[in-house]
């Protein structure tokens, strides 16, 4: 059984079709990169896996998305627990206006955990997982906004890890960061792979090549090609993919 699977997914915003019959299967403990030009539907596709698209007015979703073999768009799905199982990281670092500690503790608190000792332990392990502990251990009570952009983004990843999800969705997680912070996040992705299933949307093709095991190329709402990253970047099967990754698009 695959960790994530989409079958015949069609998404409409009003009258425009954002995704056309998307079928992808993603194995556990792999990194899958979604690439394609702006507006190709890759972000929309990413947000299907934690039903974040539900927030958009006038969206229509057809087809099935399976997480651990269960169709999450079925009636009666507990969206909160689905999302608890799915960490999400965004384009711009977006820590909450709280202390560093409370940012990471947030997910635990909203899920009803009150045992302070447990929370403290979990916060520490989560921050250690993103290799941020040494940088922030003396200022856990300070505002998260005092951190640099790269640190903030790692904090946001720690925030997502604290609730122990099995899936991490990343929406262009390094597009607002400098190259060194970017390299740190990429390294982190590589390490997190052993424990989590990661799906990452990126505009940076080198990044997709560096961090992912599989790559899906979207264009105008269609899945043009999905395959092993090494093959996509050395010998893509479709000409459109070739033109896109070699920068000859259009």
């Amino acid at each position, binding site marked *: 059984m695959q960790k994530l699977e989409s079958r015949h997914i069609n998404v409409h915003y009003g009258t425009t079709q954002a995704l056309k019959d998307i079928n992808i299967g993603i194995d556990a403990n792999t990194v899958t990169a979604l690439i394609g030009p702006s507006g190709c539907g890759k972000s929309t596709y990413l947000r299907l896996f934690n039903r974040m698209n539900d927030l958009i007015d006038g969206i229509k979703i057809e087809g099935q998305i399976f997480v651990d073999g269960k169709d999450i768009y079925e009636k009666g799905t507990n969206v*909160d627990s689905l999302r608890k199982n799915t960490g999400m990281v965004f384009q711009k670092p977006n820590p909450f206006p709280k202390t560093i500690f409370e940012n990471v503790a*947030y997910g635990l608190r909203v899920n009803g955990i009150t045992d302070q000792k447990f929370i403290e332990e979990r916060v520490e392990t989560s921050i250690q997982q993103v290799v941020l502990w040494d940088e922030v251990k003396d200022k856990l009570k300070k505002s998260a*906004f005092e951190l640099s952009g790269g640190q903030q983004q790692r904090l946001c990843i720690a925030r997502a890890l604290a609730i122990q999800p099995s899936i991490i969705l990343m929406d262009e997680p390094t597009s607002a960061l400098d190259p060194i912070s970017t390299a740190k996040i990429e390294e982190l992705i590589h390490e997190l792979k052993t424990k989590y299933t990661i799906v990452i949307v990126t505009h940076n093709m080198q990044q997709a090549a560096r961090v992912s095991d599989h790559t899906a190329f979207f264009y105008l709402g269609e899945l043009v090609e999905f395959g092993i990253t090494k093959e996509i970047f050395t010998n893509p099967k479709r000409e459109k993919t070739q033109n896109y990754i070699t920068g000859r698009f259009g």
Partner: protein
Amino acid sequence: MKTINENKLAISKRRSQNIAFFLLGFLGYFIVAILLVILSFIVIKGFSVISWDFITKMPEEGMTKGGIYPAIIGTLYLVAGSMLFAFPIGVLAAIYMNEYVKDGFVKKFIKQMTNNLSGIPSIVFGLFGMSLFVNKLGFGDSILAGSLTLGLLVLPIVIRTTEEALKAVEDTFRQASLGLGASKWQTTRRVVLPIAFPNIITGLILSVGRVSGETAPILFTVAAYFLPKLPTSIFDQAMALPYHLYVISTSGTNIEESRPIAYGTALVLVLIVLITNLLANALRKFFGKKVKMN
């Protein structure tokens, strides 16, 4: 030939730019000048009567002498009362509108109605307040009735500023919170409101300024012509600065003699509004720093 034309063009471009700059600058300073004229007019005329006694004593001798203490206290009560009423309702309504209702007919309808509400002249609010709160609900001329009427008046302002403040919160904050399994209400209360707070405060202060200066809505609902004692309950009548000012300038026992007191009252009123505005800015900066975006 061409270069000459280009030079000409450059000169004419620069000239029109200079004219525009001059006009815009002039208008900007003109507004400042008007404000300064009004302020200095009130300060010059009113400053001489301001004293510790003036703001802490009861009015005397048909309001030609003495202080304006009960009017200040009355206004503060009305501000506090109307805010207690309008702020929670307004903020909750705005939260409902912005966070819960999906785009569509209902939202548009509520929005339009809110806008209409803010367009109604304040005297109409006064009449409505009189018939509903004073007569129908039997509150009589009282701080309660006046506060509720003023509250209704500023409700649209509170709703609209709060809505704007909530809209300014980036969606990714909501998504990040929801993505951690938080409920919508947890997200709103713990993430969205703290971020929007500085801007909501601004709306609050704006409405304080509005409330403290209104005369018409309190005319029939609370304001006492002359009441040389402090209110003891919310069902008491009270004096209020704007109404006091109106009374002693138009229908007092001796208008000429109470003129300086009128200017003094005006100055106090202006100062209250000014101070609340400064306070608002300070609060905004203070909270703004806490949630500063990078």
